[in-house]
């Protein structure tokens, strides 16, 4: 990717000027963060210019008593995590790219969260945002309260659009308390089954449960130390954190993801998972794939294929053109060149 093609506004006014300049030049422009997720989510995108949020990276406020914060879209998850530490708060996501990606990219892409089973997908942590439409108009969506049903949920619509409906300026995020006494352990395959479906699941529901290799033991983390449980080997928290870092790195670098259902989990536990899945998040039923899309051995018309969903999605929604026109009537949508030179 040619770095000279990336525009990095520092303010909303500069972003508006950038859009206007691109229109005047007859260029197509597409929003992005730091580019860490482009390969997965925009493998074939080639706009004339990228509009990056990376220079808009401030934490605008942390309202600890209300468990919310407001950040500029280019702020990295790691920066926010560090700022939240004194408040014993965290973002309710556990996703790849905390150091290299931006929060805007994390939510716009959207990425997988290993805390999905607790707090839902990353976008569920977003209460509202400030956006710039393709015509330069600024829109506030949602609010700073944890529940609001006033007007349409523009936040979810824009977040799922991967930047094709709006450029994200700011995000208002819901925060969660950090676990009080996180405890790590390792489980063999027989134990894993019990923690997924057996009585252990109710005795002490895990916060994280993943495997790094089909043949390794699984890693488990609880929010607090569970009651003494037979056969569970508590490990040093540092070991657990290191395993989690490897899991997120594997997930972030894998060319594809697979979401699978219960029947696949069962068969893996019986026969051992396929070598092509180097990281498995058991609680959210998501695996990293060594190749994008389904494995060649999987017949798409087979019964087994219905138990899988593969990402990235490569087809755009048929509603996209009409929605883009509604977002900025008469203006070239993000990712498309103006019809005539000089723009609208």
């Amino acid at each position: 990717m040619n770095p000279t093609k990336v525009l990095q506004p520092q303010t909303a006014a500069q972003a508006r000027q950038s859009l206007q300049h691109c229109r005047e030049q007859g260029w197509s422009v597409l929003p992005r963060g730091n580019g860490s997720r482009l390969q997965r989510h925009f493998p074939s995108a080639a706009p004339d210019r990228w509009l990056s949020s990376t220079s808009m990276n401030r934490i605008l406020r942390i309202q600890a008593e209300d468990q919310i914060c407001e950040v500029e879209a280019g702020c990295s998850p790691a920066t926010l995590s560090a700022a939240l530490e004194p408040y014993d708060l965290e973002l309710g996501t556990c996703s790849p790219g905390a150091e290299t990606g931006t929060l805007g990219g994390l939510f716009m892409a959207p990425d997988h969260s290993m805390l999905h089973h607790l707090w839902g997908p990353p976008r569920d942590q977003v209460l509202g945002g400030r956006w710039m439409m393709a015509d330069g108009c600024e829109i506030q969506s949602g609010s700073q309260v944890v529940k609001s049903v006033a007007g349409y949920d523009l936040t979810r619509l824009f977040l799922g659009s991967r930047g094709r409906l709006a450029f994200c300026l700011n995000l208002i995020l819901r925060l969660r308390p950090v676990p009080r006494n996180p405890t790590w352990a390792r489980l063999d395959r027989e134990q894993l089954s019990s923690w997924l479906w057996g009585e252990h699941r109710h005795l002490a529901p895990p916060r994280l449960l993943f495997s790094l290799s089909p043949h390794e033991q699984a890693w488990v983390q609880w929010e607090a130390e569970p009651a003494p449980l037979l056969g569970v080997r508590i490990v040093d928290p540092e070991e657990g954190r290191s395993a989690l870092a490897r899991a997120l790195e594997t997930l972030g670098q894998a060319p594809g993801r697979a979401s699978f259902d219960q029947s696949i989990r069962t068969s893996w536990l019986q026969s051992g998972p396929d070598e092509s899945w180097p990281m498995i998040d058991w609680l959210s039923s998501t695996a990293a794939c060594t190749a994008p899309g389904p494995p060649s051995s999987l017949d798409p018309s087979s019964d087994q294929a219905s138990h899988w969903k593969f990402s990235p999605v490569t087809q755009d929604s048929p509603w996209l053109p009409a929605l883009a026109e509604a977002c900025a009537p008469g203006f070239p949508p993000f990712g498309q060149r103006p019809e005539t030179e000089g723009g609208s």
Partner: protein
Amino acid sequence: MSRKKRWLRRLREIVGKEYLLTDPASLLAYESDALTLFRSQPAAVVLPASEAECIAVVRLLAAEKIPFTARGAGTGLSGGAVVEPGGVVLALSRMQKILTLDPQQGFAVVEPGVVNDDLNREAARWGLRYAPDPSSQTVCTLGGNLGENAGGPHCFKHGMTSQHVLFAKVVTATGKVETWGDAHSVPEDLDLRGFLVGSEGSVAVALQIGLRLIPKPQAIVTLFAAFDSIAGACAAVQSIVAQGLMPVALEVMDQRAIRAVEASVYRCGLPTDAGAILLVDVEGPENQIQEEAEAVEVALQKHRPMKTERAQSPEQRRALWKGRKGAGGAMGRLGPDSYVMDGVVPRSKLVQIMAYVEQVEQETDIPVANLFHAGDGNIHPHFSYDSRDRSQADKVEAAGAKILRKCLELGGSLSGEHGIGLEKEALLQEQFEPQELALMERLRRVFNPEDLLNRGRGLPLGSGCAEAFHRHGGRP
């Protein structure tokens, strides 16, 4: 044959004579939802029994350009299911099948007319539950819950309807049938499912809804604390949350609400001399929740409660929650009519907004009872008044608007879970800028190009749409 007679005959052919209502006595029940401030007599009510019938009805109404409004049980509290005069109510209460309940995958697929509690009862057989629990859950439908993004006391931890809808099969206002969302994965493309939830029935009509079910907890501890004032209860909520504790519910009731409950069939032994009570649910594994419940109790003690108590049995726990959920009904005894408001503030502003509610009550001299989702900052002042007295009704409406404006001033929102409906459409212009409302209107037109589907609901279209409807229970 007139045009109207022709389309009524076609509707009758689709659903059967018995399920097309046109006589004034039958239409009466469909003039309003549970907010009786707004009424409008529909031209007809049509009750399809199946997906195919529902699609055929929508396509016919679209072709004939008849405005129509989908409706569940009519328990909404914002006038969201009141059809435009001369329009048709599409009542989905006969579409009440639970189509799939997959205990292993943890999801259910339901028709829109399934009652919230019916799904819960079925899920409970598998050790599962559906988390959103509006107070009307014994009668409200899941289709209505989707339209309004319903909440409930236990949404503090588990989230609102939008966090539990995996997908929806819909028919749009133009008759197009599509599925938005997915049962097994987070949609990576446009999140139309997310846009649909809370759209107050103006984007599409749900035919099937895929819902996430979550495991029932191993154990639950319910406790309550009595305080001499609402401010004490609200401050205790702040302390609990500030300590990083995560109860599933944090509910406050004031003295008027407590006394109404204790004088009703929902009585559960609440102290009637308390200024307010705080009801807290903590759930999880047995060994962990005892520790958490103790931490909650320590946080409560800092605010000098008159009394704290743990429910000693599942029966007492159920009774406490029956009292809380029945409080809305119990308050019916306080006056001939009730106006239940819905506004939200940041949790840290609860004390301020409740002081303001008290000030407004004194100014209007109309009694207000309060029961609210304190953990979410979601207030529900209940005004008890007599709608036959026009000045009282006007005062209630003005008081409601003042409180909502104060919510906005404190950084909140006009609605936490009831929606905008007809009730708040004028105020929406005070929460959003003109360009934001114009954008919402254009987006609505993408799915609902002729604005036939729930016209004039949820957005301030044109000027004073609500004026087209009869207010204060009055009839033409």
